[in-house]
């Protein structure tokens, strides 16, 4: 659209024709008050707060529906306008309860702010306000009717935004009211209820305290909390969630999660897990003291010193006795922890028996794209890509932000969405084309898609995608190995195609990037290949691939595994491992709860969760983000610290494990030509630090010390520190250079999708009271799928 020039309060402004006046003003720093207007949602012109005076227009006009025009002359703050707004507020306050002191929205209420600005505090009505009892609509949503000012934001957010349509307007005139989709006449307790995705977006957009969340209402006041923006631990989308934290006697308690800081890559969005799924952290079931299994089989709580000394001693004995050892990492570790864990295994335990619960085939993805630049789609691409092909996956349930971005992109930009799936997933409602295929038929389907030899529906999609100028291909975890490679190869034949593979959990992608794999080093460099790590990782490093997760447990079962070190993972339940398997293996577990795996351990080291640590994580798309310590729990330690301490207790040289402090040897001249890895490593790192203007980190527990090394050694992780530190996400291409990659054909497919729903989150989810409550409520059928 061509730009037009117009005048607002004497200021000359220009904006593309068709821009809404309210947006144009906002862009120029002129705030026009509004209750019903919400960017991206349909227009209402209902609240009349945005009225402005436009020359040659008889009545006051609503800035939320007026589009800027050439030569338009606008006044946004005149006595007339102020009076109009004041009167509107007086009308609202006539019925609005003035219980602000106890209202959740108190201090962050748009009605409060407006009243403050236009001074309509004195309510001149003598009639009593019509009071209504607060209603509980769902395990997460409460509705306080008298507080509602009928801006209809919630209704539109639920319908247009979430495609759930669980909220509506009922009655008319002064009895008009927001109503949930299950009428009182159809519930046992005779009260209306919600059947929805429980995303809490309605609460988020409510300008007042009419919609409040069960987790937060009447618990505390906004200003009594610390607000820390960090990354949600649950799915692979990587939403920023702002945690409100309050100090308690044994550390601090997370009071709420929300999206008040809209700076994350999730913009406006946050799903129920990011909003309510933090409560596991406050759980009284948390393990907060180290435990050792006694000869009688019982656990006994011990001091940290005792636990660490014992663990270090036993691991060292087992390693030095030449017995096999292995490590298994989790998908919710930071990159630094994942990296450090595999380095610990490879340089201290001296084993490649390393794995994690693989939720998507990132190795094949990296291999298939090796040597290609800029082929990894960012989460941001979903916001504006003109065309998206989704093969497999169910973002609505497994990657809610991805689903939100796709819906919004289709709604606001008419993006074209093409879907190939074995289920009639909900996103088909936004899809231009949808092809349903056989559950086990992805390989065949991809082949057919590539050759245009499928059924009508599939061929239509082949046609359509070939016609696109550029395309984002989102790939579900159903596609692995050959099928995945075939799809990517097909994609590469199209112009400007980018790819993303949707895994589960906050750092599944990072875990793979960081080399928590038996055959791949960080950055997907095959252990047996030639790479820096040989010199970097010292004499214990060996270049034969280790046992994968299944192999590790087979070895344990066969009595060939001396020690197993499990960090924040629950393979015993995930892969349903028999108890007996670990009978003869010394098992160390970092855990928060008595999981099936922890129950079989010899040592349990109580650890922190993602909300209690700092570091970085990489989402399904390869967007790297900083996590920030929000809360903490007395007694627990981060996995990073524990690995370092255990290594220390084993007598390892910590300076080799974590590059920190100034090397006594100082910076050598003969840059790394000296034999001996330590020296070489020291030199390289020191040189790299100086060349990147970075200071050596002073503590071995400083995640940034490890990040330094990641950035130095892991292909694709060449990140910008400032970007990261300013809390912005940045997009990486964690595929090794082509020459480094060659995948052993015999590689077995160990991908085991989490298949989480909106209300489950692996083992962790089971320890979240709210998620459990929701999972039970919606046990029957998936949430909020309207008839269509």
């Amino acid at each position, binding site marked *: 659209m061509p730009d037009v020039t117009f005048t607002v309060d004497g200021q000359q402004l220009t904006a593309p024709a068709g821009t809404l006046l309210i947006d144009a003003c906002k862009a120029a720093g002129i705030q026009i008050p509004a209750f019903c207007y919400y960017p991206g949602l349909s227009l209402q012109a209902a609240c009349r707060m945005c009225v402005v005076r436009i020359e040659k227009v008889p009545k006051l006009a609503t800035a939320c*529906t007026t589009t800027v025009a050439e030569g338009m002359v606008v006044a946004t703050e005149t006595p007339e306008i102020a009076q109009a707004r004041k009167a509107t507020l007086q009308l609202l306050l006539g019925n609005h309860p003035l219980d602000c002191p106890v209202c959740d929205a108190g201090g962050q209420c748009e009605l409060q702010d407006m009243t403050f600005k236009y001074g309509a505090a004195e309510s001149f009505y003598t009639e009593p306000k019509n009071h209504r009892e607060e209603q509980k609509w769902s395990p997460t949503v409460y509705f306080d009717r008298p507080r509602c000012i009928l801006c209809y934001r919630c209704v539109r957010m639920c319908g247009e935004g979430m495609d759930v349509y669980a909220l509506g307007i009922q*009655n*008319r005139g002064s009895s008009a009211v927001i109503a949930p989709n299950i009428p009182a006449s159809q519930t046992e307790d005779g009260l209306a209820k919600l059947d929805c995705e429980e995303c809490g977006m309605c609460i988020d957009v409510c300008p007042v305290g009419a919609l409040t969340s069960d987790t937060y209402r009447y618990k505390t006041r906004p200003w009594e909390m610390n607000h820390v923006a960090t990354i949600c631990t649950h799915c692979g989308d990587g939403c920023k969630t702002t945690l409100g934290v309050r100090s308690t006697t044994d550390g601090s308690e997370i009071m709420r999660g929300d999206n008040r800081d809209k700076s994350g890559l999730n913009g406006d969005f946050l799903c129920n897990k990011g909003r309510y799924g933090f409560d596991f952290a406050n759980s009284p079931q948390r393990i907060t003291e180290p435990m050792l299994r006694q000869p009688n089989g019982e656990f006994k709580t011990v001091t940290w010193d005792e636990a660490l000394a014992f663990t270090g001693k036993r691991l060292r004995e087992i390693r030095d006795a030449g017995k096999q050892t292995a490590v298994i990492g989790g998908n919710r570790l930071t990159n630094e922890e994942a990296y450090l864990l595999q380095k610990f295994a490879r340089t201290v335990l001296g084993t490649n028996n390393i794995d994690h619960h693989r939720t998507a085939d990132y190795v094949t993805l990296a291999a298939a794209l090796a040597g290609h630049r800029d082929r990894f789609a960012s989460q941001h691409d979903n916001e504006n890509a003109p065309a998206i092909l989704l093969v497999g996956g169910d973002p609505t349930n497994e990657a809610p932000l991805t689903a939100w971005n796709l819906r919004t992109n289709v709604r606001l930009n008419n993006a074209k969405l093409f879907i190939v799936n074995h289920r009639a997933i909900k996103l088909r409602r936004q899809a231009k084309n949808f092809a349903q295929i056989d559950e086990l038929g992805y390989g065949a389907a991809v082949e057919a898609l590539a050759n245009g030899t499928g059924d009508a529906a599939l061929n239509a999609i082949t046609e359509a995608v070939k016609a696109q100028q550029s395309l984002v291909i989102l790939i579900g975890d159903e596609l692995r190995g050959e099928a995945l490679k075939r799809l990517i190869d097909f994609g590469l034949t199209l112009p400007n195609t980018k790819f993303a593979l949707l895994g589960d959990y906050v750092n599944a992608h990072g875990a793979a990037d960081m080399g928590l794999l038996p055959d791949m080093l960080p950055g997907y460099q095959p252990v047996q290949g030639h790479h820096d790590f040989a010199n970097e990782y010292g004499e214990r490093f060996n270049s034969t691939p280790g046992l994968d997760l299944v192999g590790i447990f087979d070895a344990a079962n066969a009595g060939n595994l001396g020690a197993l070190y499990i960090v924040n993972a629950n393979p015993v339940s995930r892969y349903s491992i028999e108890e007996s398997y670990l009978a003869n293996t010394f098992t160390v577990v970092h855990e928060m709860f008595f999981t099936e795996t922890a129950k079989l351990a010899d040592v349990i080291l109580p650890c922190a969760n993602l909300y209690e640590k700092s570091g970085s994580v990489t989402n399904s798309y390869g967007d790297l983000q900083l996590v920030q310590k929000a809360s903490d729990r007395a007694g627990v330690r981060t996995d990073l610290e524990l690995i370092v301490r255990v290594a220390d207790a084993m007598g390892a040289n910590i300076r080799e494990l974590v590059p920190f402090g100034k090397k006594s040897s100082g910076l050598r001249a003969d840059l790394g030509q000296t034999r001996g890895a330590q020296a070489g490593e020291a030199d390289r790192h020191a040189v790299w630090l100086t060349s990147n203007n970075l200071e050596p980190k002073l503590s071995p527990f400083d995640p940034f010390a490890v990040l330094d090394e990641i950035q130095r050694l892991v292909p694709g992780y060449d990140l910008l520190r400032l970007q990261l530190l300013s809390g912005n996400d940045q997009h990486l291409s964690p595929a090794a250079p082509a020459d480094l990659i060659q995948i052993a054909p015999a590689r077995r497919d160990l991908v085991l999708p989490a298949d989480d729903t909106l209300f489950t989150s692996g083992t962790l989810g089971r320890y979240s009271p709210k998620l459990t409550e929701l999972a039970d409520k919606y046990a029957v059928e998936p949430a909020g799928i309207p008839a269509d």
Partner: protein
Amino acid sequence: MPVLVSHPDEVKVLSRRFGQGAADIDKYLELDGYKAVQKAIESGSEWVINEMKASGLRGRGGAGFPTGMKWSFVPKVSEKPKYVLVNGDESEPGTCKDHVIFLHDPHAVIEGTMIAGLAIGAKMGFIYLRGEYRYLLKIVEKAVADAYAKGFLGKNIFGKEGVDFDIVTQSGAGAYEVGEESALMESLEGKRGVPRIKPPFPAVVGLYGGPTVINNAETIASAPHILLMGGEAYAKLGSERNGGTRLFGISGMVERPGVYELPMGYNLKKAIYEVAGGVKGGRKLKAVVPGGSSCPVLLPEEIDVGLDFDQMGKAGTMLGSGGIVVLDETVSIVEFALRTIKFYQHESCGWCIPCREGTDWLKKTLTRFYNGAGNAKDINNIQYLAENMMGRTFCPLGDAAAMPTLGFIKKFRGEFEEYLKGQRTEKAFITTDELIGAAH
């Protein structure tokens, strides 16, 4: 069955066929029914629109917008189908003129709808009647069926190749706001009767997103007569820039209430004292609400004025829907104001804050005032509320509630003040203590 009235001053154009059984299609044909539409088919849309413009016909729904001009706004070409929508929601208190048209001359509405369709190039028309008018809906439904049977509706109407027109009748279900044109379209699309944001206007984006002409039933029923007698001739019947005649419903405290067809510009005082036989029982006139309950009240000394859109405008009120309500000296204005606002409070769709809350607070305040618990501040509050609703609401219903209220306060402030002193001599009408609350 509504009694038909008559008076020598009447000029019967629209009401020509009333009382002659013209609801029967053969009778209607006898009375040169369906001639106008055939003439229109021959002469083409240009001609129709020009005749309509020449006729000076202005919308009978209340706003008084020139009909010919409205029709000419519809784009000639459009990807989306165009529609004609007949507004028979007739709900403005004091108004019952469309009622008699549907009852006595339903085919005139049908023929007018077809004419409008030909004029704008629409192939489909809707006739929407308020839900309460079920017996009238049945009459119109039968008339439509008969027209189809005769080949006047459907494909190749009147045997003319390629000339198609369909009419669907629709029932409302109780909502004054649905009379507002864009709310009417929402209702016809099966939604809540909440008006639409304008622009775009119906002529460009209307029903189902297609260009739409929406007219009041009386406006539409006038079209055939105009084409038969010619626009010029029709215009001459009325006053300057207010062509033709109009049905005026005179109700309230008069000797001969009824629906009379008078030339535009006819004197209001004569209409009351001669046509309607004057104030009932020879009592003194206190006030007149000239065009439906939303029009500011007139004092006896203000009624020597011509009944057309412009003269009424000059008199500080409106011609509105042509429903003239007469109040005699025994009426308490406080009570009348309360009953008026009670209606608008009940009918506000609730979409926008100033109307939803404003009508509610006006009703609450007036109710308390009426029940004797008022105070001097209330009078100012009522005025303040009304003034702050004027021109600030999403659709004109807010104004429709504010305008009469302001009129009552301005012209009868004294009576409000007296009322406070408990000196109310007038007879109380409202005997129920609980007034109808808002819907549900």
